[in-house]
């Protein structure tokens, strides 16, 4: 475990955040592409949120989709998470984390919407029925 073997390619494994490429040019290009894509996506999000050109109820959905796309861009270009075989472990951990986030957020919202629906005090129900 000394420093000599502390080199990238002595083992089919990548640290999260590591990139296979060691040359400057392609790496710079990678970050620049990431920045470009994410600026593009951000701009689209802000545009959609403020416009009335699109069907209004679809806006939140579109925003969520754009956000997920942008997170993907960040993961790939900034955090260098890829699907390559030497990245398996990192991706598995990410997948586990995302599953938990999904279960916790999704589950909470589902449960809470049912609870709230079943427990509205009378006058709120009446307001809704009006």
């Amino acid at each position: 475990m000394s420093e000599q073997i502390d080199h990238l390619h002595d083992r089919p494994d990548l640290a999260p955040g590591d990139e296979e490429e060691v040359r400057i040019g392609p790496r710079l290009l990678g970050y620049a592409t990431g920045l470009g894509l994410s600026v593009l996506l951000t701009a689209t999000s802000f545009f959609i949120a403020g416009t009335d050109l699109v069907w209004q109820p679809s806006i939140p959905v579109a925003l969520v989709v754009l956000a997920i796309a942008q997170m993907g861009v960040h993961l790939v270009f900034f955090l260098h998470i890829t699907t390559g075989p030497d990245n398996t472990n990192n991706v598995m951990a990410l997948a586990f984390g995302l599953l938990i986030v999904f279960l916790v957020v999704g589950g909470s919202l589902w449960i809470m919407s049912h609870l709230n629906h079943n427990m509205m005090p009378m006058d709120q129900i009446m307001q809704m029925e009006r």
Partner: protein
Amino acid sequence: MLGKLDWSAIPIDEPIPLIAAGVVLFAILAVLIWAGVKGHYPYLWREWITSVDHKRIGVMYILLAMVMLLRGGTDAIMMRAQQTVAYHSNGYLPPEHFNQIFSAHGTIMIFFVGMPFVIGLMNLIVPLQLGVRDVAFPTLNSVGFWLTATGALLINVSLVVGEFARTGWLPFPPLSELTYSPGVGVDYYTWSLEISGIGTLVAGINLVTTVLKLRTRGMTYLRMPMFCWTTLASNLLIIAAFPILTATLAMLILDRYFGFHFFTNEAGGNVMMFMNLIWAWGHPEVYILVLPAFGIFSEVVSTFSSKVLFGYRSMVLATMAICIISFMVWLHHFFTMGAGPDVNAIFGIASMIIAVPTGVKIYNWLFTMFGGRVRFAVPMLWSIGFMVTFIIGGLTGVLLAVPPADFLLHNSLFLVAHFHNVIIGAVLFGAFAGYTYWFPKAFGFRLDEATGKAAFWFTLVGFYVTFMPLYVAGLLGMTRRMQHYDVAAWRPWMIAAGIGTVLLAIGVALQVLQLFVSIRRRDELRDTTGDPWDGRSLEWATSSPPPAFNFAVLPNVTGEDAYWRVKEHARRQDLDKREPDYKDIEMPRNSPTGFVCAFFATVMGFALIWHIWWMVGLGAVGAFATFVVFAWRDHDEYIIPATEVARIDRTNLAARRAALDLAGIAQ
């Protein structure tokens, strides 16, 4: 100057806690002075307090758990005594005191008995089983331990200074909000759990990384001993669940300290969100506790049946299934809140599904015994006791997962009986099994058998006598947390449970006695081979206690039950007599970082509880300074020269060969 703190915080008018605290303080002082007089401090500081060795840290975790078991158990005795006498009377504990006791008991048992016990065992054993020299982040490991100890310390301080929460082991708002709990009790609770929670998270990250990234050569995933698998699953759950606890308690803290409105009755707060979030952590938490215990039983049953673990692949699958499914069931703790039939039914069924992989595990242990040669040593007794007891607790758990049944049993003593049935039957028995099984590995001598067996029988019988009556009381409609009651039908069952608690206490006392007896007789009980039970996995391949570097040469594994294969080979008389090629070994250097961090965390926690703001600042600055100093350090490794490694290893090998030769001849 001192925030909310003044002399009235010392409960001079309440003799019971004061005397109890006095005794504890006296005991601590006595130990401290004794250590000082004997000049043990330098040794303790050098070898234990600043140690970053996973084995030492594991031992300290376990010691913490055992001490806190006595504290939590004393609380349990007091509660049972109260319910025995408090029929048509107020008993001997006033409500505000009784309510602190069950809250403290639950909190201590879960966070400062269950957690440190299993984390300690994992810390001690998993690196050895994986064939590595230490965990992934040794210094952080020490930080994690000391932060856990800080949490435990703060809870115990609440005995003497101020009060503890009177809200139950999970502080449901609005009862825990400032309006209804204006005292410092809930603050003791939140801060001690926030601090120890960070410690637990650190331990979780450490162990997951160790299992995934540090395994020795040839130790592929499917060659890992079961305990390593359950460790992986349990620590994945820690990483996923503890942040939820941290966030939820943080929201409660913001409500209490800064007038936020997450869970208040006013301004749109929503108490159901607290229930929802805390159980999203709370349910996985019970599997965090029980999965390592399952791993321990797998090791013990296989070793003491002298047989390979049956159905390894199923076991792995079942473990991972439990790990994932346990995140999809949390609503079963509040079926009676009224989320509606669809939600209830789906979460109910999801909860039941866990019975399938759990059942598979039980059957695989069963078939591990089938065709084996079962030795009823103490760890095996705990395991068999566990199997029977846990099935009963599992049955009542699945019953509670049927929503209409839960509509009658929720928050009843039936529920209390259920969870003690699974927690004592699985987690505590598992911890005791692991403790007896691995004690010789940690200290080089076995624990006394006779007292161990006696402890087992008292605990087992005591458990049934204590908790079976509580099932009945629950079916008779008795709810939990009753400081007193007027229903005649409950009385006999409370008395029976009181008697059972006496047996349980004798059982625990015998365990303490066992430790003393074994230390005195340690020369008779000495294990020179490093392998006292005829074990099967790599921890038995090194000496007892293992050298700081665990293995002189990292083992190369080519099959499951790695060490068993070596022995089989050796028994066939062709033991590899070639000297290994010893190299210098680089080990992490001891570091006071953990202890210093914990010191500042204690200062900060105490100051936050009492609103002593200048002290909070002091603690924060101190913690940051520690961090910078630690980061600035230049050498965090030292070298053990090859000659030294060789010297240590040769003695071990010689003893081992002698033992194996004997075994070979005997066959």
